[in-house]
């Protein structure tokens, strides 16, 4: 009678409830187990080293894209309360190793209640199953059978009626298995191993082995990525930048301690300033290197606040960090940059960060050459190299040595895009007549990427004595353009 009651308890939403003989052996509730356990230590529980709780969330919440869905991640984060060993099984599964937590949460029933609460908190209705191997727990949960198998010896018997498709094998393979009349896990387990591996693949045999616990099934542990988020209500409404920075100071101190404890730094930090009757002002700080120092963060944040215009006085402020990133610590230089040959690397990251904090990260860049004859494609903006350089960059490097007077033929300034020149009598004009001062340099390339150019470049002198770099299209209508200034 007790077994019947517990079976009803555990199989309320299973449409294809197991038939009678199986039900007799199947679910074991905590109520039926715990008293025994207290009475005799040699209960079946002790036989399994691990006990996995498999959770399946409804398909609607599990997205088909790559990586775990936000709902699953949120649930996994909550599940970390129950056990440190949480593993994701995307797209819809979650696994918890709960052997060590059973007693703390009041046995299987208590644990299931906790997990149901966690699911409800995320707005989900999960299916739970307990089994000694992770794959078995997951498969049972995915099959919609809330199994509770505490004894490994009973595992195979419990799994046998589950349909084979819950293992998520390729459909073609399942069709082939169905052709030989194999539709359940039990039927598959009865097939000869060698033949099975040969006909249906060694990977599938390994799946079955992991299902029954013949081989180990290590799972990658889900690590929660913590972020710092703290809000402070202000006792006075503030407008002044200095006062705001002072108000943010304790929050930054907290952030520093938070990061120091984890030996981490942040790459982005968001500051929200709340107003009465207005949406909050946001200011996002992005950093070049992981940073945890409150003083420097305050300095950078101050630059951001400078550029921010506030619609109203601030009544509360909030700091939200990005994900902490491990910080690589290095010893500081003895000399100031530029002093006694001190390396430039020490001071330059701060310098660049300060600039970027105020001007935006795209506003500060370095330059590099590309191998292309088209002037507009011959260079690109690069990330400034902050690492200190020990040696002179190009001494003894034949490719990098200056090519004599060659650079006299190319301008130091390039226009963002070629500017059309007016013409008179077939000759170009730019605020007065232009005098061509060189032979044409033909640049005709780029047919392979759709940005084909066919141009004859000339050096031209304008009425002010400036040297300009102009070109004439080789194809009709043979227009003239200004493209550079020699400077």
């Amino acid at each position, binding site marked *: 009678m007790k077994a019947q009651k517990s079976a009803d308890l555990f199989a309320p939403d299973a449409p294809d409830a197991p038939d009678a003989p199986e039900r007799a052996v199947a679910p074991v509730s905590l109520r039926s187990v715990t008293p025994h356990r207290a009475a005799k230590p040699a209960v079946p529980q002790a036989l399994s080293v691990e006990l996995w709780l498999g959770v399946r969330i409804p398909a609607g919440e599990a997205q088909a894209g790559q990586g775990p869905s936000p709902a699953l991640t949120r649930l996994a984060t909550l599940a970390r309360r129950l056990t440190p060993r949480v593993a994701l099984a995307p797209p819809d599964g979650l696994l918890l190793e709960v052997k060590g937590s059973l007693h703390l949460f009041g046995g299987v029933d208590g644990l299931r209640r906790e997990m149901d609460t966690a699911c409800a908190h995320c707005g989900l209705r999960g299916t739970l199953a307990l089994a000694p191997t992770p794959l078995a727990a997951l498969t049972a949960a995915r099959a919609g059978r809330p199994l509770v198998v505490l004894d490994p010896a009973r595992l195979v018997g419990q799994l046998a009626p589950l349909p084979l498709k819950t293992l998520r094998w390729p459909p073609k393979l399942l069709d082939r298995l169905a052709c030989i009349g194999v539709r359940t896990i039990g039927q598959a387990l009865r097939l000869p191993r060698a033949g099975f591996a040969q006909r249906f693949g060694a990977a599938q045999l390994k799946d079955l082995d992991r299902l029954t616990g013949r081989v180990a099934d290590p799972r990658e542990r889900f690590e929660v990525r913590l972020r710092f988020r703290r809000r402070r209500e202000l006792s006075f409404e503030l407008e002044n930048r200095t006062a705001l920075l002072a108000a943010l100071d304790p929050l930054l101190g907290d952030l520093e301690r938070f990061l120091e404890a984890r030996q981490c730094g942040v790459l982005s930090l968001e500051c929200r300033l709340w107003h009465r009757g207005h949406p909050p002002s946001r200011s996002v700080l992005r950093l070049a290197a992981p940073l945890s120092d409150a003083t420097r963060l305050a300095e950078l944040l101050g630059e951001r606040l400078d*550029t921010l215009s506030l619609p109203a006085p601030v009544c509360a402020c909030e700091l939200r960090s990005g994900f902490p990133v491990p910080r690589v610590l290095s010893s500081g230089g003895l000399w100031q*940059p*530029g*002093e006694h*040959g001190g*390396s*430039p690397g020490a*001071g*330059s990251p*701060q*310098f*660049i960060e*300060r*600039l970027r904090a*105020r*001007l*935006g990260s*795209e*506003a*500060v*860049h*370095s*330059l590099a*050459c590309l191998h292309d004859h088209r*002037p507009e494609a*011959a260079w*690109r*903006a*690069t990330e*400034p*190299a902050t690492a*200190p350089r*020990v*040696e*002179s*960059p*190009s*001494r003894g490097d034949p490719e990098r*040595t*200056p*090519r*004599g*007077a060659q*650079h*006299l033929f*190319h*301008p*130091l*300034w*390039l*226009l*963002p895009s070629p500017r059309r020149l007016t013409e008179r009598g077939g000759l170009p004009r730019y605020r007065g007549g232009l005098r061509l001062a060189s032979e044409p340099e033909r640049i005709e390339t780029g047919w392979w990427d759709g940005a084909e150019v066919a141009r004859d470049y000339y050096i031209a002198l304008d009425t*002010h*004595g*400036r*040297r*300009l770099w102009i070109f004439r299209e080789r194809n009709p209508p043979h227009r003239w353009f200004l493209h550079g*200034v*020699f*400077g």
Partner: protein
Amino acid sequence: MGTLWVFYPSLPVSADFSASGEALPPAWDRREELTRLLQHPAIWRAGRAARIPVWPSGFPALDEGLPGGGWPQAGLIEILPSRLGVGELSLLMPALAIVTRRPGARWCAWVAPPLQPFAPALEAGGIALERLLVMRIPRSAARRSFLWAFEQALGSSACDIAFAWARQPRPRQIRRLHLAAQRGNTLGVLFRSRGEAREASQALLRVAVEPLEGGVRVRLLKSRGGARGAIDLKWTARADSVEPT
């Protein structure tokens, strides 16, 4: 020695010569001692350029005219071209190549350049491109962002050279930039229009640049102890000077 003006703060020169009560050394000996004494960096002789650390400009004729024999390593200088692009940048290219290619070079910042610096030409001119830092001032940013960025580049000790293209900076701002450049041990180069040459400026050096056929004419409008007048430079001389030796 004629009209020799010597200014030496807190140097007990007279004590050296007479207080000991001994017989004075022979005249040639004294002169040698005086020469040695005048080597002291705290002494500045009028009519002679102050000894300041400089970057060679790459043009021997220009080096001769510039105080100290080159562009100063710390401080603000002004370049006043008659038009943008008459050769003011080419004038600085050899020095830039020398500075960026030396070991342990710091940044060379370009604050709000009016056009796009053309990397292949700069590289062909011998400049180490990875030491260049181009800063664009967003249109939305306030005008003082430009001055702020330039001051940061000058005063943060992270740059060897910082270029900026300014429109009508006020004398007070120039003084502030000059002090920042000295603090950061940085050469600040401010490009201004020729029309602003009349305005007072705290810059160490003011140079007007006019185009010539195949070169530029450089006029030193203000230089502490340097030469005055025009110096004609030809571009052909530039290519040789850039070659590393």
